[in-house]
């Protein structure tokens, strides 16, 4: 049986189709949309919780979606060791449902930030980063209003001790995240949440060469696709040839 990836869809998700397109058309792995009301899901080798504004960010981003039936299933899959990736709002949902520690709060600028940034891989032992070199830097877009990663000193100490900080912004801090954190994983490494959007930087047509305007390399690379290719290479089932 060929590998299949599930994409959770909530009212207000808006990056689900981008992720679906990249997986099916660019990477070449079967990926399906799964509506949030599903109580029982089976036959999937990994789950992606995409970006957007699930339930309109009511109360705070991710909290209402965290209580939806599909997240019970995602929790079960995470416990079984299957890879679970949350992107942007998906990261917020994973934090609110307790799969990842800490909180994502309003950017310190109090503004929605939508631009390219640079990140560095600080853990390449996860299923989502295994094809990156350690300390590799790459450009990737961000688009969020609540992306400031915050945790108390006890959680931060644990994250560092257990090598759970996976990506860090390299220089400028776009949202005020503690320790420039852009992505973290759980202790086992099979659940990762990231604020930047790899699906928006996985094809040349989506990138912009900004080298003439500034001297950093963000905006001109499709390296972010390595998040998805790493994931697919680590699935128990192999993708269709």
């Amino acid at each position: 049986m060929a590998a299949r990836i599930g994409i959770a869809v909530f009212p207000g998700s808006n990056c689900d189709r981008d992720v679906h397109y990249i997986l099916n058309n660019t990477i070449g792995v079967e990926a399906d949309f799964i509506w949030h009301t599903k109580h029982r899901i089976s036959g999937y080798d990994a789950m992606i919780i995409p970006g957007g504004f699930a339930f309109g960010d009511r109360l705070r981003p991710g909290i209402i979606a965290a209580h939806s039936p599909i997240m019970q299933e995602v929790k079960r899959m995470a416990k079984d060791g299957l890879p679970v990736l949350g992107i942007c709002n998906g990261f917020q949902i994973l934090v609110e449902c307790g799969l990842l520690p800490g909180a994502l709060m309003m950017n310190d600028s109090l503004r929605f930030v939508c631009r390219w940034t640079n990140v560095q891989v600080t853990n390449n032992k996860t299923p989502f980063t295994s094809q990156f070199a350690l300390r590799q830097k790459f450009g990737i877009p961000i688009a969020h209003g609540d992306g400031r990663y915050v945790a108390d000193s006890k959680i931060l100490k644990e994250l560092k001790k257990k090598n759970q900080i996976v990506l860090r912004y390299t220089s400028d801090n776009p949202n005020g995240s503690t320790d420039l954190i852009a992505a973290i994983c759980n202790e086992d490494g099979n659940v990762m949440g990231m604020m930047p959007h790899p699906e928006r930087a996985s094809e040349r047509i989506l990138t912009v060469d900004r080298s003439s305007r500034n001297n950093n390399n963000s905006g001109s690379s499709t390296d972010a696709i390595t998040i998805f290719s790493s994931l697919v290479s680590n699935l128990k089932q192999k993708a269709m040839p």
Partner: protein
Amino acid sequence: MEKDVPKFIVQVIIENKPYINDPEGETIHRDLVVKGGYSNVQSVRSAKMLKMVVNSKTEHDAEASVKKLCQELRIFNPVVSNCTVKSTGKS
């Protein structure tokens, strides 16, 4: 039957813990309150307030039930926020 059960207003205040900086509160303080002439105001912290109307036999029960739901449904993220629940009397 519900007609006989009294209604109470219960306020839920979700406030970030002191270690979380609060740029919204700081901006309100610096750029509105102090610039507006109220330099006696030392600080401003922003918070979120939910007002719930609860059917309950007693005020105490109404408060207890809201306290329970705040924990159970994670109305606040305990890593970064504190939650205060208080009844303000009959609706």
